[in-house]
């Protein structure tokens, strides 16, 4: 029984990490693509402003990347931290219930 419970915990953690990263990457991808497209347009219209546009674009990209990074942090927590914590609490609960 315990093995099945631990298996479910591990599987759900991996599944959650995958879904989290997959959905979390959509927003930054679309946003950064939009930013770069508009930057290209701006450079095409005004080639002499290339330096300023590029540095602003990189700054904006890095900021719009933030939500993706949050998703990544959660995914890494789910993979490396959550399983051990959940299994620990499970075994503790079983011990206290048994005793």
């Amino acid at each position: 029984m315990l093995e099945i419970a631990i298996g479910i915990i591990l599987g759900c953690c991996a599944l959650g990490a995958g879904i989290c990263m997959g959905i979390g990457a959509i927003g930054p991808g679309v946003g950064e693509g939009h930013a770069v497209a508009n930057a290209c347009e701006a450079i095409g219209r005004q080639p002499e402003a290339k330096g300023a546009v590029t540095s602003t674009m990189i700054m904006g990209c890095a900021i719009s990347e933030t939500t993706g990074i949050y998703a990544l942090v959660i995914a890494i927590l789910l993979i490396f931290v959550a399983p051990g914590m959940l299994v620990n609490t499970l075994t503790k609960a079983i011990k206290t219930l048994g005793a």
Partner: protein
Amino acid sequence: MKDNKKRFQIVDALLIVMMIAPLVAAMAIKVLTTPASEGISITGARILFTIPMPIQDLIISEAQVNSWLILITILGFCLFITHGLKEDKRDWRQMAAEWIVEKVDDLVHNSMENVFHDSYAPFIATILAISACSSLMSLFGVFPPTADVNVIAGWSILVFALITKNKLKAGIGNYAKGFLEPIPVMLPMNILSEFATPISMTFRHFGNVMSGTVIATLVAWALQNLSAMVLGWLPGFLGDVPFLQVGIPAILSVYFDIFSGCIQAYIFAMLTMLNVSGAYPAEAIAERLAKREERKAKAA
């Protein structure tokens, strides 16, 4: 001229040693504390030792020690480029120091233009230097302090204190009233967004650096396994050498360590400046001054 040369050799040699010794020490600590049996694995900062304290034990981890070492390196660099400044005769070190100070002053001046003075330039320069150098530390193969969330959380708390200090400049009443705007129902949201700033700054920087570390580790692990699979038939010790691991991780580290680390340092400094200058209640202070002058005029 001869005298100059002599001084250069003694003091500067010492300062260069001061710059390089901490990095060597960090590498030595890394080599000495890594257990020999451990292969490639994803770990946080290794705990070096703990100091017993009354409430909670004080944990001294690799991240803290490395950030102390990088502070010594930056101090050595600053002393190296600024000692022996002369007004009339400039050498390349003085040029470099002037260039750095000028650039940071320009940056602060352009970003915090409203009422702000250059008094924030040293703070911004410190954040830039520590953040960039800490992220670049991973090039030497040691644990970068910025990959530990506690280090960056400390910086973010500093920035939060600065923001609150600036908001309080127009009086506590004005600060408290800011939470009830635009309508009093927004109070919980405003309190939440007050704490969201440092948390988002922390996780933005930490996540970027840590994702680089994790991806580099995963790629190194995959390449090791791949080279063991593909080249494992080679005779003797040649089969154990992971040939495919040469080169490819270096290309990744150019992006993740150099580019991403420097960009994140810049963004952290930029957000600090924007948040701090945005917190300054310029209108409220102007109103106050106008009222005070009115009162003075009436009294007169």
